[in-house]
């Protein structure tokens, strides 16, 4: 592999990996290849100190107490970071994994998504939940979600050690301020302007005058990603690894 041009999915991996630095335990869902790749890269960078648990992996899944263990483990406070995507994500970091359309007609949504998975729980108990969505359009990043699978914030009397930390898309990185329940544009991927993001985003958010570019991989990191990490990723996300890295 001689092409050192960074691909869009790799930019998202580069954006996520640093967010996992200095954590102890990161868990990744079965259908989250980009975060999974970022977590395995962060693990590599930590010299193996970072524990990465990937659901559906044979090699990176340490759980021995059934499907409930991930959730129990999160409830015990033993998981520092997790990743959620959404059919819709809104400006309050509310996530919709159920469907789009007239709420009154539930469950007959115009478009039905798979369902809420563990989001309605994990979003509450894992301190650093990183939202990710490749498609950055007004269709996916909306003003208000049609169905709340998991709310971005809760009133102070609700037990909630966890919640949203950032949102990573194919265009940019947002961070989330829980107190203000609002996103801030943190960095722009190469070739993307502030205006591009504003036009592609259905919700309002804050931005400073000077938004930096998302930090990319060093040549060395990229090589590691495309060799060592790629083959690890292939075990759990074979379709993804084949499409992206041809492994």
């Amino acid at each position, binding site marked *: 592999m001689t092409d050192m041009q960074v691909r869009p999915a790799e930019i998202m991996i580069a954006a996520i990996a640093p967010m996992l630095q200095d954590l102890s335990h990161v868990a990744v869902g*079965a*259908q989250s290849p980009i975060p999974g790749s970022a977590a395995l890269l962060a693990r590599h960078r930590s010299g193996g100190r970072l524990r990465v648990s990937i659901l559906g992996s*044979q090699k990176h899944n340490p759980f021995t107490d059934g499907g409930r263990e991930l959730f129990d483990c999160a409830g015990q406070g033993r998981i520092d970071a997790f990743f959620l995507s959404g059919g819709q994500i809104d400006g309050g970091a509310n996530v919709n994994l159920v469907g789009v359309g007239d709420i009154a007609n539930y469950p007959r949504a115009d478009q039905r998504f*798979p369902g*809420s998975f*563990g989001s309605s*729980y994990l979003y509450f108990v894992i301190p650093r939940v990183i939202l990710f969505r490749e498609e950055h359009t007004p269709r996916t990043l909306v003003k208000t979600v049609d169905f709340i699978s998991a709310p971005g914030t809760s009133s102070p009397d*609700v037990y909630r050690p966890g919640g949203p930390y950032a949102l990573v898309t194919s265009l940019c990185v947002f961070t989330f301020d829980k107190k203000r329940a609002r996103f801030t544009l943190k960095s722009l991927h190469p070739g993307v302007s502030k205006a591009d993001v504003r036009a592609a985003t259905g919700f309002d958010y804050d931005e400073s005058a000077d938004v930096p570019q998302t930090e990319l991989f060093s040549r060395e990191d990229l090589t590691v990603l495309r060799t060592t990490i790629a083959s690890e990723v292939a075990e759990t996300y074979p379709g*993804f690894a084949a499409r992206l890295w041809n492994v």
Partner: protein
Amino acid sequence: MTAQSSIMTTTAQLAARIPNGAKIAVPPDYSGCAMTVVAHLMRRPVRDLHVVAVPQAGFQVDQLIGAGCVARVEAAAVTLGEFGLAPRFTAALKAGTIEILDATCPALQAGLQASEKGIPFMPLRGIIGSDLLRVRPDWKVINNPIAEDGQHDPIVVLPAIRPDIALFHAAKADRAGNVWIGVRRELMLMAHASKQAFVTVDEIVDDNLLHDPALAAGTIPALYIHAIALAPNGAAPVGLAGHYAPDRKALKAYADAAKTDEGFTKWQRHMLAIALEPA
């Protein structure tokens, strides 16, 4: 004849013992699906199943929905994973021919654990503020009864889920009716929580699994098992983690075919002809 030996049966007879309207618990695609039983259920077809996905459903349940076997799905998600949305599930929801009880993974597990413990409900953190509470009127919010006096600490309580039958596939069973599941403990939870457990296995071994200390740790005792049928490779094409991989070609063929009613019907006719060859 001992109680133990009477549970040994065939996949056809096992499927025949699942009545219309049964509430059946099934594992996700990676955890051991009794696909040969699913084929029998589709041919009959069984009607009005209430499927409890533990905690999510995939190919197995999409096929049952397509064949008109399902009245209601209780699941945290229904998806074909990297093969896309579950087409028959999506179509049936649009047509209004099935009911969906949207859930979240740990809520299904907690409901089954409540049944396992013989308690009427289980509390769970999270969920508050989610629209799940709106569409699941059976889920209640109470104030934490052990919170300090006057403290407002709302928490969700979920009713126990007690399926009639847990239906799954495992690597092996012994002649006493014990079933080895290894680390797939969600299958043990399903068996404990359900009134009966029906299991297909790749292999039936002579030695009692409980007599081997290593194997015993991953074994569901016969106490919870009501029917076992030998079905080598019985989790194909979705596969059995650690034993045989998903048949990705077959799964893709299904995902493509099931996009339309006609495509599904054709796929079903073809599949049943192969899967249910006279034994």
